[in-house]
Protein backbone atom coordinates (compact mmCIF):
# COMPACT_ATOMS: atom_id res chain seq x y z
CA UNK A 1 0.00 0.00 0.00
CA UNK A 2 3.03 2.27 0.07
CA UNK A 3 2.43 2.41 -3.65
CA UNK A 4 -0.84 4.21 -3.04
CA UNK A 5 0.85 6.92 -1.00
CA UNK A 6 3.53 7.29 -3.66
CA UNK A 7 0.91 7.47 -6.41
CA UNK A 8 -0.99 10.13 -4.49
CA UNK A 9 2.20 12.09 -3.96
CA UNK A 10 3.12 11.85 -7.64
CA UNK A 11 -0.42 12.85 -8.59
CA UNK A 12 -0.26 15.78 -6.21
CA UNK A 13 3.03 16.99 -7.65
CA UNK A 14 1.65 16.60 -11.18
CA UNK A 15 -1.39 18.65 -10.22
CA UNK A 16 0.88 21.24 -8.67
CA UNK A 17 2.79 21.62 -11.91
CA UNK A 18 -0.28 21.47 -14.10
CA UNK A 19 -2.47 23.96 -12.33
CA UNK A 20 -2.34 27.63 -11.66
CA UNK A 21 -4.39 29.67 -9.27
CA UNK A 22 -5.94 33.06 -9.60
CA UNK A 23 -3.58 35.57 -8.05
CA UNK A 24 -6.08 37.53 -5.97
CA UNK A 25 -8.22 36.12 -3.22
CA UNK A 26 -10.68 37.36 -0.66
CA UNK A 27 -8.94 35.76 2.32
CA UNK A 28 -5.72 37.55 1.48
CA UNK A 29 -7.67 40.77 1.01
CA UNK A 30 -9.26 40.35 4.44
CA UNK A 31 -5.87 39.76 6.01
CA UNK A 32 -4.39 42.77 4.24
CA UNK A 33 -7.30 44.92 5.35
CA UNK A 34 -6.62 44.06 9.00
CA UNK A 35 -2.93 44.67 8.53
CA UNK A 36 -2.90 47.76 6.36
CA UNK A 37 -6.25 49.55 6.50
CA UNK A 38 -8.21 48.76 9.65
CA UNK A 39 -6.48 51.35 11.82
CA UNK A 40 -6.85 54.12 9.24
CA UNK A 41 -10.46 53.24 8.49
CA UNK A 42 -11.53 52.89 12.10
CA UNK A 43 -13.93 50.05 11.37
CA UNK A 44 -13.85 46.38 10.50
CA UNK A 45 -13.44 44.89 7.06
CA UNK A 46 -17.05 43.67 7.16
CA UNK A 47 -18.28 47.25 7.58
CA UNK A 48 -15.97 48.43 4.79
CA UNK A 49 -17.16 45.74 2.38
CA UNK A 50 -20.76 46.51 3.32
CA UNK A 51 -20.40 50.14 2.14
CA UNK A 52 -21.30 49.06 -1.42
CA UNK A 53 -23.15 46.40 -3.36
CA UNK A 54 -21.29 43.95 -5.56
CA UNK A 55 -22.21 45.93 -8.67
CA UNK A 56 -20.90 49.12 -7.12
CA UNK A 57 -17.59 47.55 -6.08
CA UNK A 58 -17.32 46.04 -9.57
CA UNK A 59 -17.92 49.40 -11.21
CA UNK A 60 -15.37 51.11 -8.98
CA UNK A 61 -12.82 48.43 -9.79
CA UNK A 62 -13.51 48.48 -13.54
CA UNK A 63 -13.29 52.27 -13.67
CA UNK A 64 -9.99 52.28 -11.76
CA UNK A 65 -11.61 54.16 -8.90
CA UNK A 66 -11.09 51.57 -6.15
CA UNK A 67 -8.05 53.27 -4.64
CA UNK A 68 -9.87 56.60 -4.59
CA UNK A 69 -12.87 55.02 -2.87
CA UNK A 70 -10.67 53.39 -0.23
CA UNK A 71 -8.99 56.73 0.46
CA UNK A 72 -12.39 58.44 0.58
CA UNK A 73 -13.73 55.95 3.13
CA UNK A 74 -10.46 55.82 5.07
CA UNK A 75 -9.12 59.38 4.81
CA UNK A 76 -6.37 58.77 7.35
CA UNK A 77 -4.70 56.39 4.93
CA UNK A 78 -2.08 58.16 2.85
CA UNK A 79 -1.87 55.79 -0.07
CA UNK A 80 -2.79 52.29 -1.12
CA UNK A 81 -0.30 50.01 -2.82
CA UNK A 82 -1.44 49.00 -6.30
CA UNK A 83 -0.41 45.37 -5.80
CA UNK A 84 -2.89 44.99 -2.93
CA UNK A 85 -5.88 46.38 -4.84
CA UNK A 86 -6.95 43.08 -6.50
CA UNK A 87 -6.99 41.39 -3.07
CA UNK A 88 -8.96 44.23 -1.49
CA UNK A 89 -11.41 44.10 -4.38
CA UNK A 90 -11.97 40.36 -4.02
CA UNK A 91 -12.59 40.80 -0.31
CA UNK A 92 -14.97 43.77 -0.70
CA UNK A 93 -16.85 42.06 -3.51
CA UNK A 94 -17.25 38.83 -1.55
CA UNK A 95 -18.69 40.57 1.49
CA UNK A 96 -20.58 43.39 -0.28
CA UNK A 97 -23.89 44.47 1.25
CA UNK A 98 -25.90 42.40 -1.21
CA UNK A 99 -23.63 39.35 -1.18
CA UNK A 100 -25.38 37.54 1.63
CA UNK A 101 -21.97 36.31 2.77
CA UNK A 102 -21.30 36.44 6.47
CA UNK A 103 -17.75 37.32 7.52
CA UNK A 104 -15.94 35.18 10.07
CA UNK A 105 -16.24 36.14 13.69
Amino acid at each position, binding site marked *: *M*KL*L*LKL*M*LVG*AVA*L*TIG*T*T*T*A*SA*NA*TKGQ*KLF*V*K*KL*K*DSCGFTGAIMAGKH*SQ*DEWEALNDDGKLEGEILKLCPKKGDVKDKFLPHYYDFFYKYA*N*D*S*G*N*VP*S*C
Partner: protein
Amino acid sequence: MKKIIALSSIVALATVGFASTNVETRLDTMENKISKLEKKLIKANKKLNKVKAHDAGDNIKWDVDFRTSVDRLSYDHASGKESKNGSLMTNRLLLGMKFQADENVLFYGTLGYNKAYGDTMNHSQSNTNPGYANFDWVTNENATDNTVKVKEAYWMYMNNTFMGKDIPWTASVGRRPSTGGLGINFREGDQRKSALAHTVNIEFDGASFKWTLDKVTPLVGSWFKLCMGRGLTNATQRFQNDGSSYANNTSTSSHQKNIDMKGFIFVPYDDGQYSIHTNYATANDLIGFASNGTTYMSTSGNYDSNYQTIFPAFKSFGDLELITAMVKVDGIGDGINDYLDETIIFASFAQSKTKPKSFGAGETARMLGSTKSETGNSIWLGVQMPCLLSEDGRIGVEWNKGSKYWRSMTYGEDTMSGSKIATRGTALEVYWLKPLTKALSMNVRYTKIDYDYTGSQAFFGDDGTPTDMSTITAANAAMYGDPVKSSTDMRVSMRYRF
Protein backbone atom coordinates in the same frame (compact mmCIF):
# COMPACT_ATOMS: atom_id res chain seq x y z
CA MET B 1 -40.67 69.40 -70.11
CA LYS B 2 -39.27 72.30 -68.13
CA LYS B 3 -42.56 72.49 -66.25
CA ILE B 4 -42.41 68.84 -65.35
CA ILE B 5 -38.84 69.20 -64.03
CA ALA B 6 -39.75 72.29 -62.04
CA LEU B 7 -42.79 70.57 -60.51
CA SER B 8 -40.75 67.48 -59.67
CA SER B 9 -38.13 69.64 -58.00
CA ILE B 10 -40.78 71.41 -55.92
CA VAL B 11 -42.32 68.08 -54.85
CA ALA B 12 -38.88 66.67 -54.02
CA LEU B 13 -37.93 69.68 -51.93
CA ALA B 14 -41.26 69.59 -50.13
CA THR B 15 -40.80 65.88 -49.43
CA VAL B 16 -37.27 66.48 -48.06
CA GLY B 17 -38.64 69.22 -45.89
CA PHE B 18 -41.40 67.03 -44.57
CA ALA B 19 -38.96 64.11 -44.12
CA SER B 20 -36.53 66.31 -42.20
CA THR B 21 -39.29 67.43 -39.88
CA ASN B 22 -40.42 63.84 -39.53
CA VAL B 23 -36.92 62.63 -38.62
CA GLU B 24 -36.51 65.31 -36.00
CA THR B 25 -39.86 64.42 -34.48
CA ARG B 26 -38.96 60.76 -34.46
CA LEU B 27 -35.55 61.48 -32.92
CA ASP B 28 -37.21 63.52 -30.19
CA THR B 29 -39.66 60.72 -29.56
CA MET B 30 -36.87 58.18 -29.44
CA GLU B 31 -34.81 60.31 -27.07
CA ASN B 32 -37.83 60.55 -24.79
CA LYS B 33 -38.30 56.82 -24.97
CA ILE B 34 -34.61 56.14 -24.28
CA SER B 35 -34.68 58.52 -21.34
CA LYS B 36 -37.76 56.76 -19.98
CA LEU B 37 -36.13 53.39 -20.55
CA GLU B 38 -32.98 54.54 -18.77
CA LYS B 39 -35.04 55.63 -15.80
CA LYS B 40 -36.89 52.31 -15.86
CA LEU B 41 -33.57 50.45 -16.06
CA ILE B 42 -32.18 52.34 -13.07
CA LYS B 43 -35.36 51.58 -11.17
CA ALA B 44 -35.21 47.93 -12.21
CA ASN B 45 -31.55 47.72 -11.15
CA LYS B 46 -32.36 49.21 -7.79
CA LYS B 47 -35.20 46.74 -7.40
CA LEU B 48 -32.96 43.89 -8.54
CA ASN B 49 -30.30 44.86 -6.01
CA LYS B 50 -32.93 44.94 -3.29
CA VAL B 51 -34.24 41.54 -4.34
CA LYS B 52 -30.69 40.20 -4.58
CA ALA B 53 -29.82 41.51 -1.13
CA HIS B 54 -33.04 40.09 0.28
CA ASP B 55 -32.53 36.78 -1.45
CA ALA B 56 -28.89 36.59 -0.37
CA GLY B 57 -29.86 37.17 3.23
CA ASP B 58 -32.84 34.90 3.11
CA ASN B 59 -31.10 31.58 3.43
CA ILE B 60 -28.28 29.83 5.23
CA LYS B 61 -24.98 30.20 3.42
CA TRP B 62 -23.29 26.84 3.06
CA ASP B 63 -19.65 26.17 2.46
CA VAL B 64 -18.00 22.86 1.73
CA ASP B 65 -14.67 21.63 3.07
CA PHE B 66 -13.97 18.12 1.83
CA ARG B 67 -10.59 16.51 2.39
CA THR B 68 -9.16 13.20 1.30
CA SER B 69 -5.96 12.16 3.08
CA VAL B 70 -3.49 9.33 3.05
CA ASP B 71 -1.39 9.00 6.19
CA ARG B 72 1.66 6.81 6.47
CA LEU B 73 2.03 6.03 10.16
CA SER B 74 4.97 4.46 11.93
CA TYR B 75 5.44 3.85 15.66
CA ASP B 76 8.58 2.58 17.42
CA HIS B 77 7.82 0.93 20.75
CA ALA B 78 10.12 0.67 23.76
CA SER B 79 10.50 -3.07 23.20
CA GLY B 80 11.82 -2.52 19.71
CA LYS B 81 8.53 -3.53 18.14
CA GLU B 82 7.26 -1.42 15.26
CA SER B 83 3.60 -0.65 14.54
CA LYS B 84 2.73 0.90 11.24
CA ASN B 85 0.12 1.63 8.65
CA GLY B 86 1.40 2.34 5.17
CA SER B 87 -1.77 4.00 3.96
CA LEU B 88 -4.49 5.12 6.31
CA MET B 89 -7.00 6.73 3.99
CA THR B 90 -9.69 9.00 5.33
CA ASN B 91 -12.38 11.31 4.06
CA ARG B 92 -13.39 14.33 6.08
CA LEU B 93 -16.37 16.48 5.20
CA LEU B 94 -17.15 19.74 6.95
CA LEU B 95 -20.31 21.57 5.95
CA GLY B 96 -20.22 25.14 7.17
CA MET B 97 -23.37 27.17 7.78
CA LYS B 98 -23.71 30.91 8.26
CA PHE B 99 -26.73 33.11 8.57
CA GLN B 100 -27.13 36.73 9.54
CA ALA B 101 -30.65 37.16 10.83
CA ASP B 102 -30.24 40.89 11.38
CA GLU B 103 -27.51 43.45 11.89
CA ASN B 104 -26.74 42.17 15.35
CA VAL B 105 -27.22 38.43 15.31
CA LEU B 106 -25.32 35.74 13.46
CA PHE B 107 -25.58 31.97 13.40
CA TYR B 108 -22.64 29.72 12.63
CA GLY B 109 -22.60 25.95 12.37
CA THR B 110 -20.46 23.12 11.08
CA LEU B 111 -21.55 19.57 10.39
CA GLY B 112 -18.74 17.03 10.32
CA TYR B 113 -18.06 13.60 8.92
CA ASN B 114 -14.72 11.84 9.29
CA LYS B 115 -14.19 8.20 8.35
CA ALA B 116 -11.50 5.81 7.26
CA TYR B 117 -12.09 4.17 3.88
CA GLY B 118 -14.39 1.18 3.91
CA ASP B 119 -15.28 -0.91 6.89
CA THR B 120 -12.84 -1.60 9.69
CA MET B 121 -11.31 -4.91 10.60
CA ASN B 122 -13.32 -5.38 13.78
CA HIS B 123 -16.49 -4.44 11.90
CA SER B 124 -16.95 -1.46 14.10
CA GLN B 125 -16.34 1.62 11.99
CA SER B 126 -16.85 3.90 14.90
CA ASN B 127 -13.90 2.46 16.89
CA THR B 128 -15.87 3.14 20.01
CA ASN B 129 -16.51 -0.22 21.56
CA PRO B 130 -13.94 -0.55 22.92
CA GLY B 131 -12.40 2.85 22.49
CA TYR B 132 -13.04 6.55 22.89
CA ALA B 133 -12.99 7.78 19.29
CA ASN B 134 -16.50 9.17 19.71
CA PHE B 135 -15.67 11.02 22.93
CA ASP B 136 -17.49 14.32 22.67
CA TRP B 137 -14.33 16.47 22.73
CA VAL B 138 -12.94 14.79 19.61
CA THR B 139 -15.88 13.19 17.86
CA ASN B 140 -15.40 15.06 14.58
CA GLU B 141 -11.60 14.90 14.63
CA ASN B 142 -11.35 11.11 14.72
CA ALA B 143 -12.09 8.62 12.00
CA THR B 144 -15.35 7.11 13.18
CA ASP B 145 -18.38 5.98 11.21
CA ASN B 146 -20.33 7.44 8.32
CA THR B 147 -22.67 9.61 10.35
CA VAL B 148 -22.75 13.39 10.11
CA LYS B 149 -22.38 15.07 13.48
CA VAL B 150 -22.52 18.62 14.77
CA LYS B 151 -19.06 20.08 15.18
CA GLU B 152 -20.06 23.68 15.75
CA ALA B 153 -23.40 25.42 16.28
CA TYR B 154 -23.67 28.76 17.99
CA TRP B 155 -25.29 32.13 17.74
CA MET B 156 -23.47 35.40 18.17
CA TYR B 157 -24.85 38.73 19.22
CA MET B 158 -22.82 41.80 18.21
CA ASN B 159 -23.06 45.42 19.21
CA ASN B 160 -20.81 48.41 18.63
CA THR B 161 -21.34 49.93 22.05
CA PHE B 162 -21.24 48.44 25.52
CA MET B 163 -23.11 50.32 28.25
CA GLY B 164 -22.91 53.47 26.15
CA LYS B 165 -19.15 53.24 25.66
CA ASP B 166 -17.37 52.83 22.35
CA ILE B 167 -16.61 49.18 23.03
CA PRO B 168 -17.72 46.72 20.35
CA TRP B 169 -18.70 43.47 21.99
CA THR B 170 -20.08 40.05 21.21
CA ALA B 171 -21.85 37.33 23.15
CA SER B 172 -22.03 33.80 21.87
CA VAL B 173 -23.49 30.54 23.17
CA GLY B 174 -23.52 27.02 21.76
CA ARG B 175 -21.06 24.44 20.54
CA ARG B 176 -18.18 26.86 20.09
CA PRO B 177 -15.33 26.79 17.55
CA SER B 178 -12.67 25.60 19.99
CA THR B 179 -10.68 23.36 17.64
CA GLY B 180 -8.25 24.65 15.00
CA GLY B 181 -7.29 27.67 17.10
CA LEU B 182 -4.40 30.10 16.74
CA GLY B 183 -1.12 28.34 16.01
CA ILE B 184 -2.36 25.02 14.73
CA ASN B 185 -4.32 26.74 11.92
CA PHE B 186 -1.20 27.68 9.94
CA ARG B 187 -0.27 24.18 8.83
CA GLU B 188 -3.75 23.72 7.33
CA GLY B 189 -3.89 27.17 5.75
CA ASP B 190 -7.01 27.90 7.77
CA GLN B 191 -8.25 31.01 9.45
CA ARG B 192 -7.90 30.66 13.22
CA LYS B 193 -10.78 29.54 15.38
CA SER B 194 -11.43 30.88 18.86
CA ALA B 195 -8.95 29.13 21.14
CA LEU B 196 -5.18 29.31 21.48
CA ALA B 197 -4.22 25.86 20.25
CA HIS B 198 -1.20 25.46 22.51
CA THR B 199 -3.45 24.57 25.43
CA VAL B 200 -6.98 24.03 24.08
CA ASN B 201 -7.92 22.12 20.96
CA ILE B 202 -11.09 20.16 21.67
CA GLU B 203 -14.75 20.53 20.83
CA PHE B 204 -16.63 22.28 23.57
CA ASP B 205 -20.12 23.42 24.46
CA GLY B 206 -20.13 26.79 26.14
CA ALA B 207 -20.24 30.54 25.84
CA SER B 208 -17.94 33.44 25.14
CA PHE B 209 -18.12 37.19 25.64
CA LYS B 210 -15.68 39.44 23.86
CA TRP B 211 -14.97 43.15 24.30
CA THR B 212 -12.83 45.06 21.82
CA LEU B 213 -10.87 47.59 23.83
CA ASP B 214 -8.75 49.46 21.31
CA LYS B 215 -11.02 52.51 21.14
CA VAL B 216 -11.09 53.11 24.89
CA THR B 217 -7.50 52.16 25.77
CA PRO B 218 -4.13 53.04 24.23
CA LEU B 219 -3.59 49.32 23.56
CA VAL B 220 -3.67 48.93 19.77
CA GLY B 221 -6.06 46.20 18.60
CA SER B 222 -6.58 44.93 22.13
CA TRP B 223 -9.49 42.72 23.12
CA PHE B 224 -10.60 40.55 26.02
CA LYS B 225 -12.72 37.43 25.78
CA LEU B 226 -14.31 35.45 28.60
CA CYS B 227 -14.85 31.79 27.78
CA MET B 228 -16.69 29.14 29.72
CA GLY B 229 -18.18 25.77 29.03
CA ARG B 230 -19.09 22.31 30.19
CA GLY B 231 -16.93 19.42 29.08
CA LEU B 232 -18.93 16.69 30.75
CA THR B 233 -22.45 16.56 32.09
CA ASN B 234 -22.89 14.22 35.01
CA ALA B 235 -26.46 13.01 34.75
CA THR B 236 -28.37 9.79 34.65
CA GLN B 237 -30.08 8.79 31.46
CA ARG B 238 -33.70 9.49 30.62
CA PHE B 239 -36.36 7.01 31.80
CA GLN B 240 -34.85 5.96 35.11
CA ASN B 241 -36.86 3.23 36.84
CA ASP B 242 -37.46 5.49 39.82
CA GLY B 243 -38.35 8.44 37.60
CA SER B 244 -35.25 10.54 38.42
CA SER B 245 -34.27 11.29 34.83
CA TYR B 246 -31.17 13.44 34.32
CA ALA B 247 -30.43 13.69 38.05
CA ASN B 248 -26.78 13.78 39.07
CA ASN B 249 -25.32 10.31 38.75
CA THR B 250 -24.08 9.32 42.18
CA SER B 251 -23.04 5.81 41.23
CA THR B 252 -19.60 5.10 42.68
CA SER B 253 -18.60 3.15 39.60
CA SER B 254 -18.93 6.13 37.31
CA HIS B 255 -17.66 9.64 37.07
CA GLN B 256 -19.48 11.73 39.63
CA LYS B 257 -19.00 15.37 38.77
CA ASN B 258 -19.52 17.82 35.96
CA ILE B 259 -16.43 19.07 34.18
CA ASP B 260 -16.55 22.82 33.75
CA MET B 261 -13.96 24.98 32.09
CA LYS B 262 -13.58 28.73 32.28
CA GLY B 263 -10.94 31.25 31.35
CA PHE B 264 -10.09 34.21 29.23
CA ILE B 265 -8.13 35.25 26.19
CA PHE B 266 -6.50 38.65 26.36
CA VAL B 267 -4.80 40.28 23.40
CA PRO B 268 -2.96 43.38 24.65
CA TYR B 269 -1.58 44.34 21.25
CA ASP B 270 -2.48 43.52 17.66
CA ASP B 271 -1.67 45.86 14.81
CA GLY B 272 -2.36 43.18 12.23
CA GLN B 273 1.35 42.49 11.85
CA TYR B 274 2.67 42.13 15.38
CA SER B 275 0.41 40.64 18.00
CA ILE B 276 0.55 39.23 21.51
CA HIS B 277 -1.99 36.63 22.65
CA THR B 278 -2.46 35.38 26.19
CA ASN B 279 -4.80 32.83 27.68
CA TYR B 280 -5.69 31.50 31.12
CA ALA B 281 -8.05 28.57 31.66
CA THR B 282 -9.00 26.29 34.48
CA ALA B 283 -10.95 23.05 34.30
CA ASN B 284 -12.26 21.09 37.26
CA ASP B 285 -12.70 17.39 38.01
CA LEU B 286 -10.88 16.11 34.97
CA ILE B 287 -11.17 12.46 34.14
CA GLY B 288 -8.79 9.57 33.90
CA PHE B 289 -8.25 5.96 34.88
CA ALA B 290 -7.18 4.57 38.23
CA SER B 291 -4.48 1.92 38.30
CA ASN B 292 -5.44 0.23 41.56
CA GLY B 293 -7.91 -2.61 41.79
CA THR B 294 -8.20 -3.08 38.06
CA THR B 295 -6.65 -5.17 35.36
CA TYR B 296 -6.48 -2.60 32.62
CA MET B 297 -3.65 -0.60 34.14
CA SER B 298 -0.24 -2.02 34.92
CA THR B 299 1.23 -1.57 38.39
CA SER B 300 3.70 0.90 36.89
CA GLY B 301 0.82 3.26 36.38
CA ASN B 302 0.80 2.99 32.61
CA TYR B 303 -1.71 1.36 30.31
CA ASP B 304 -1.60 -2.40 30.34
CA SER B 305 -1.78 -4.33 27.10
CA ASN B 306 -5.37 -5.40 27.70
CA TYR B 307 -6.63 -1.86 28.34
CA GLN B 308 -8.35 -1.65 24.99
CA THR B 309 -10.55 -4.65 25.73
CA ILE B 310 -11.65 -3.63 29.21
CA PHE B 311 -13.21 -0.24 28.46
CA PRO B 312 -12.70 1.11 31.96
CA ALA B 313 -14.83 3.75 33.66
CA PHE B 314 -13.54 7.26 34.16
CA LYS B 315 -12.89 8.74 37.59
CA SER B 316 -12.41 12.41 38.34
CA PHE B 317 -8.84 13.14 39.41
CA GLY B 318 -8.61 16.87 39.95
CA ASP B 319 -8.35 20.31 38.43
CA LEU B 320 -6.00 21.79 35.88
CA GLU B 321 -4.82 25.33 35.23
CA LEU B 322 -3.42 26.34 31.87
CA ILE B 323 -1.68 29.52 30.71
CA THR B 324 -0.40 30.52 27.30
CA ALA B 325 1.54 33.49 25.95
CA MET B 326 2.12 33.76 22.24
CA VAL B 327 3.80 36.28 19.99
CA LYS B 328 2.91 36.29 16.32
CA VAL B 329 4.58 38.25 13.55
CA ASP B 330 2.62 38.28 10.30
CA GLY B 331 5.08 39.77 7.84
CA ILE B 332 8.66 40.67 8.72
CA GLY B 333 9.53 44.34 8.33
CA ASP B 334 7.47 46.67 6.19
CA GLY B 335 7.83 46.32 2.48
CA ILE B 336 11.44 45.08 2.52
CA ASN B 337 10.44 42.47 -0.01
CA ASP B 338 7.41 40.31 -0.84
CA TYR B 339 8.98 37.21 0.68
CA LEU B 340 9.40 38.77 4.12
CA ASP B 341 5.99 40.46 3.85
CA GLU B 342 4.44 37.04 3.37
CA THR B 343 6.40 35.25 6.14
CA ILE B 344 4.72 34.40 9.42
CA ILE B 345 6.61 33.47 12.59
CA PHE B 346 5.31 32.68 16.03
CA ALA B 347 6.59 31.64 19.43
CA SER B 348 4.39 30.33 22.19
CA PHE B 349 5.00 29.32 25.79
CA ALA B 350 2.46 27.38 27.83
CA GLN B 351 2.26 25.97 31.31
CA SER B 352 -0.04 23.44 32.98
CA LYS B 353 -0.53 22.97 36.72
CA THR B 354 -2.42 20.11 38.34
CA LYS B 355 -4.50 20.23 41.51
CA PRO B 356 -5.07 16.61 42.55
CA LYS B 357 -8.25 15.51 44.30
CA SER B 358 -9.40 12.18 45.74
CA PHE B 359 -12.01 10.53 43.57
CA GLY B 360 -13.46 8.34 46.30
CA ALA B 361 -13.25 7.12 49.84
CA GLY B 362 -9.86 5.66 50.65
CA GLU B 363 -8.30 6.99 47.45
CA THR B 364 -5.33 9.29 47.74
CA ALA B 365 -5.60 12.58 45.90
CA ARG B 366 -3.47 12.22 42.81
CA MET B 367 -3.26 13.40 39.24
CA LEU B 368 -0.98 12.33 36.39
CA GLY B 369 0.35 9.70 38.80
CA SER B 370 1.55 12.23 41.39
CA THR B 371 0.07 13.16 44.74
CA LYS B 372 1.61 16.63 44.46
CA SER B 373 0.58 19.59 42.34
CA GLU B 374 2.78 19.25 39.29
CA THR B 375 3.75 21.90 36.76
CA GLY B 376 4.48 21.20 33.12
CA ASN B 377 5.88 23.51 30.46
CA SER B 378 5.85 23.60 26.71
CA ILE B 379 7.48 25.73 24.04
CA TRP B 380 6.20 25.92 20.46
CA LEU B 381 7.93 27.72 17.61
CA GLY B 382 6.81 27.99 14.03
CA VAL B 383 7.54 29.69 10.74
CA GLN B 384 5.56 29.72 7.52
CA MET B 385 6.83 31.32 4.34
CA PRO B 386 6.20 31.39 0.60
CA CYS B 387 7.52 28.38 -1.24
CA LEU B 388 9.90 29.58 -3.92
CA LEU B 389 9.41 26.44 -5.97
CA SER B 390 5.72 26.99 -6.65
CA GLU B 391 3.46 29.94 -7.21
CA ASP B 392 1.22 30.61 -4.20
CA GLY B 393 2.66 27.62 -2.34
CA ARG B 394 3.70 27.91 1.29
CA ILE B 395 6.05 25.88 3.41
CA GLY B 396 6.24 25.72 7.16
CA VAL B 397 8.33 24.29 9.95
CA GLU B 398 7.11 23.86 13.51
CA TRP B 399 8.87 22.57 16.60
CA ASN B 400 7.59 22.02 20.11
CA LYS B 401 8.94 20.56 23.32
CA GLY B 402 7.05 19.55 26.44
CA SER B 403 8.32 18.72 29.92
CA LYS B 404 7.66 15.74 32.19
CA TYR B 405 4.30 16.85 33.59
CA TRP B 406 3.13 18.86 30.59
CA ARG B 407 -0.57 18.29 29.96
CA SER B 408 -2.54 20.17 27.32
CA MET B 409 -6.17 19.70 26.35
CA THR B 410 -5.41 19.15 22.67
CA TYR B 411 -7.04 15.76 22.09
CA GLY B 412 -8.85 17.16 19.07
CA GLU B 413 -5.66 18.04 17.22
CA ASP B 414 -5.79 16.88 13.63
CA THR B 415 -2.73 14.61 13.71
CA MET B 416 -3.32 10.90 13.14
CA SER B 417 -0.36 9.81 15.27
CA GLY B 418 -1.60 11.80 18.28
CA SER B 419 -1.42 15.41 19.40
CA LYS B 420 2.07 16.75 18.73
CA ILE B 421 1.38 19.64 21.08
CA ALA B 422 0.69 17.20 23.95
CA THR B 423 4.15 15.68 23.55
CA ARG B 424 6.28 15.26 26.64
CA GLY B 425 9.34 15.30 24.51
CA THR B 426 10.00 16.87 21.13
CA ALA B 427 7.92 17.14 17.98
CA LEU B 428 9.08 18.42 14.63
CA GLU B 429 6.84 19.13 11.67
CA VAL B 430 7.41 20.23 8.10
CA TYR B 431 4.58 20.98 5.67
CA TRP B 432 3.84 22.28 2.22
CA LEU B 433 0.57 23.93 1.28
CA LYS B 434 -0.26 24.46 -2.37
CA PRO B 435 -3.45 25.92 -3.80
CA LEU B 436 -4.21 24.15 -7.07
CA THR B 437 -7.30 26.03 -8.14
CA LYS B 438 -9.54 28.50 -6.35
CA ALA B 439 -11.24 25.58 -4.63
CA LEU B 440 -8.71 22.75 -4.57
CA SER B 441 -5.53 22.65 -2.51
CA MET B 442 -2.89 20.15 -1.56
CA ASN B 443 -1.09 19.62 1.72
CA VAL B 444 1.96 17.45 2.33
CA ARG B 445 2.90 17.18 5.98
CA TYR B 446 5.52 15.22 7.93
CA THR B 447 5.27 15.02 11.71
CA LYS B 448 7.86 13.32 13.92
CA ILE B 449 7.33 12.90 17.64
CA ASP B 450 9.98 11.71 20.11
CA TYR B 451 8.60 11.01 23.56
CA ASP B 452 10.82 11.60 26.62
CA TYR B 453 8.07 10.40 28.98
CA THR B 454 5.02 8.16 28.78
CA GLY B 455 1.43 9.34 29.09
CA SER B 456 1.56 12.25 26.64
CA GLN B 457 -1.67 11.25 24.89
CA ALA B 458 -3.43 9.98 28.04
CA PHE B 459 -6.08 11.49 30.26
CA PHE B 460 -5.54 13.03 33.70
CA GLY B 461 -5.45 10.02 36.02
CA ASP B 462 -2.85 7.34 36.67
CA ASP B 463 -2.87 6.73 32.93
CA GLY B 464 -1.07 10.05 32.54
CA THR B 465 1.87 9.02 34.70
CA PRO B 466 5.11 10.27 33.11
CA THR B 467 7.66 7.47 33.15
CA ASP B 468 11.07 8.38 31.80
CA MET B 469 11.43 6.58 28.47
CA SER B 470 15.11 5.96 29.13
CA THR B 471 14.18 3.65 32.01
CA ILE B 472 11.96 1.52 29.78
CA THR B 473 13.96 -1.11 27.98
CA ALA B 474 13.12 -4.04 25.79
CA ALA B 475 13.39 -6.24 28.89
CA ASN B 476 10.88 -4.36 31.03
CA ALA B 477 8.74 -2.75 28.31
CA ALA B 478 5.79 -5.08 28.90
CA MET B 479 5.47 -3.84 32.48
CA TYR B 480 4.82 -0.36 31.11
CA GLY B 481 2.45 -1.49 28.37
CA ASP B 482 5.24 -1.26 25.76
CA PRO B 483 4.71 2.44 25.05
CA VAL B 484 5.55 4.22 21.80
CA LYS B 485 8.92 5.97 22.00
CA SER B 486 8.70 7.78 18.71
CA SER B 487 6.29 8.13 15.81
CA THR B 488 6.15 9.55 12.33
CA ASP B 489 3.13 10.60 10.29
CA MET B 490 3.50 11.43 6.61
CA ARG B 491 0.30 12.85 5.20
CA VAL B 492 -0.70 13.80 1.69
CA SER B 493 -4.11 15.39 1.39
CA MET B 494 -6.29 17.05 -1.19
CA ARG B 495 -8.86 19.53 -0.02
CA TYR B 496 -11.84 21.13 -1.70
CA ARG B 497 -13.07 24.32 -0.08
CA PHE B 498 -15.70 26.59 -1.46
